[in-house]
């Protein structure tokens, strides 16, 4: 058990920091600290350009094997990259779904042809991806997929019909991965397929979802006779659930460290305000600010445990299972803390009619943190059932 990084790792850190300092400047200065959760709709064009700059420098997909353009970076190096990226104020990545979800999925389950077709575009920051998982009314029940994929013998392609929801960056993406039912006679986890679908086609319609923030980070995506090639299914028809579950596993990774650096920026801002507006003298707020600090450090060392453990074997460790519940609850509390530190000022918008301040946006948007990606209730079920071996929830027995 060792907290400090090796000298080689520290050299790597310096390299990352130098590159970022040289490149996240000039035209990119204005997108520093932008485009994070709740802010995804801002500076999209600039962030696409930035994605390509990153790619030119060899800083996309650094964890991928060198054969596919990555650096085969160690966990430590990936941690360092994410930390330095966040420390430098690196903007929210528009390519993160491709890099952290599609890529690892294809590396694990894809054919060589799929890898050759899709990995280079992701690696180059040229082809962006969005996800088609949740469906309206299904909420946290990922398996209740009603979107259908049928093999169209005439065209030799898959035809997809249905609707997905909570899709970020749908307008900006070239591709969407879609979980769809290939066998309409099978239910729940069975009879699903995992498809790679181009967005730019007549069969796909995108409708933004207006949110409580007045913005629309999320979209509904409608599939009305949308198509993808016969080869654009990952695995076989029926393998969809296995592929999707593998993909969910990739979500718990090194990006948590970068996320925490953003959280630290938010907490620092709250501390700064507290010191300037008198909230720092309020004993109840002092306790809560200290609690936020302790909580964030808890997340950090929890992640370090998680990453060190993951190096060991593939299974989810206990500290991984609690992570979503822990960070989302922490972040939601931070949003409330921000408001309480601001006091009456918390109500004042940046501008009429409804331009939120960064902290207001944090406050409102963090209410989504405990919902998307599995609500806190679902997370607790998962912890109880998988980590503690308690009985599964009965299905379909309500009265």
């Amino acid at each position, binding site marked *: 058990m060792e907290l400090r990084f090796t000298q080689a790792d520290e050299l790597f850190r310096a390299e990352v920091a130098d590159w970022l300092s040289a490149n996240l400047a000039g035209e990119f200065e204005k997108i520093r600290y932008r485009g994070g959760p709740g802010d995804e709709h801002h500076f999209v064009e600039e962030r696409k350009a930035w994605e390509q700059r990153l790619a030119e420098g060899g800083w996309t997909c650094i964890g991928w094997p060198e054969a596919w353009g990555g650096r085969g970076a160690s966990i430590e190096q990936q941690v360092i990259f994410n930390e330095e990226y966040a420390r430098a104020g690196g903007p929210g990545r528009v390519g993160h779904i491709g890099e952290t979800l599609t890529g690892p999925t294809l590396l694990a389950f894809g054919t060589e042809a799929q890898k050759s077709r899709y990995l280079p575009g992701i690696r180059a920051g040229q082809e962006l991806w969005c996800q088609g998982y949740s469906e309206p009314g299904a*909420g946290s029940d990922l398996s209740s997929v009603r979107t259908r994929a049928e093999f169209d013998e005439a065209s030799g392609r898959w035809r997809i019909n249905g609707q997905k929801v909570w899709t970020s960056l749908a307008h900006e993406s070239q591709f969407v991965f879609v979980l769809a039912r290939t066998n309409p006679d099978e239910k729940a986890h069975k009879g699903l397929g995992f498809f790679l679908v181009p967005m730019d086609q007549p069969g796909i319609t995108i409708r933004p979802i207006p949110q409580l923030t007045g913005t629309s980070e999320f979209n509904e995506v409608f599939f009305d006779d949308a198509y993808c090639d016969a080869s654009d299914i990952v695995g076989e028809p029926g393998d969809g659930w296995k592929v999707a579950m593998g993909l969910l596993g990739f979500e718990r990774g090194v990006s948590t460290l970068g996320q925490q650096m953003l959280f630290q920026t938010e907490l620092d801002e709250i501390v700064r305000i507290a010191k300037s507006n008198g909230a720092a003298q309020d004993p109840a707020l002092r306790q809560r600010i200290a609690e936020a600090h302790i909580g964030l450090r808890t997340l950090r060392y929890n992640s370090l445990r998680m990453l060190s453990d993951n190096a060991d074997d593939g299974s989810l460790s206990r500290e991984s299972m609690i992570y979503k519940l822990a960070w989302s609850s922490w972040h939601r509390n931070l949003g409330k803390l921000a408001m309480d530190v601001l006091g009456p000022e918390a*109500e004042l918008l940046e501008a009429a009619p409804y331009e939120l301040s960064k902290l207001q946006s944090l406050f409102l948007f963090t209410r989504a943190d405990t919902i998307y990606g599995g609500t806190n*209730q679902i997370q607790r079920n998962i912890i109880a059932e998988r980590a503690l071996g308690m009985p599964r929830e009965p299905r379909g027995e309500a009265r």
Partner: protein
Amino acid sequence: MNFRFSDEQRMIFDTASAFLAEVSDSAATRAAMASDAGFNPDVWQRLCNEMFWQGLLIPEDEGGLELGHVEMVGVLEKAGERLFSAPLYSTVLATTLLLRMPASDTRSALLARILAGEQVAVAHTRGDRDWATGGITASVTQDRVTLKGSSRFVSFGHSAEVLLICAHDNEQQLNVYGLEREHPGLCCERLATMDQTRAMAQLTLSDVTVEPSACLGTDVEHVVEDVLNVARILVAADQVGGAQAALDISVDYVKERQQFGRTIASYQAIKHKAADMMTKVEGARSLLYYAACIADEWRAGYADSATLAEAAAMVSASAGEAYFFNAGTGIQLHGGVGITEEYDIQLYFKRARATESYLGSPADHREHIARLLLDGD
């Protein structure tokens, strides 16, 4: 001792519910939010004509109904349930303040204008963390008074015909002055706020000169404090109503919603959250009715300022937290749609946050109670 509404009171509240169901549904609330003034003037006029709530607290000899705070609180609770967006609270606050000023022709004239449906608002605070009175000063000479400064978070100050200005004079005494909105040098602007259902204004006074007769009361710091404690109770009524509605709409939603093959209302995690919401709101409601009784006792001279302040602090802490808890938990029970603009739960959530920090935070109110309990001899 009887801690129950009379039949007459129940009738008032039923009538209130019916009226509000008609004029303050989701669409009406959203229309009011989107409007410049933050309310629908036609609804306000109907309220004044048909419900006469603006006259509920005003004595009969001034032309009002001379009912009590119990009735007022019950009506505001119903308004809170409906996210009612109108200058009702602001006008009741102004009325309460006016009724504590010495009787005068000026006062009677203002009360008559309120009864006729005009709006009066109160500017009492700078609006910083401690919500202390202040922000405006009065330079008093023999024949005129010059008012200077600004006040924030003046409820419906932008649409009021008359502003009651609390200002500290040369001797640090707090006085109250009545000003017409068009008074030269007075600027009333609506503030852009996160909660759009309770419009707030900023007042700026640059060398406003008034006659000494504009003064409605002098050296009334303690009176204003009492009135603000009544205000806290009125806000708590809104919070209890909102907390109830947040519970109700969330329970309705989860009863409809299916997941994993069951209505999600059948999951214990959901049921227990709802039970906690109900426990919070019923607790706050019990304190609210107590506080309303105390406000009536205070008005009648039976309860002193300290008792009123204690009641206000207790119910503000309790109702503020109940509303925020219920609205926040309500979003969680709604799941994904809870954060969409389409559903109303987020409107309750924003109103909960706004009212929770208005006139002091729950922690501030608890500290008030702690001082009473712990800092004596």
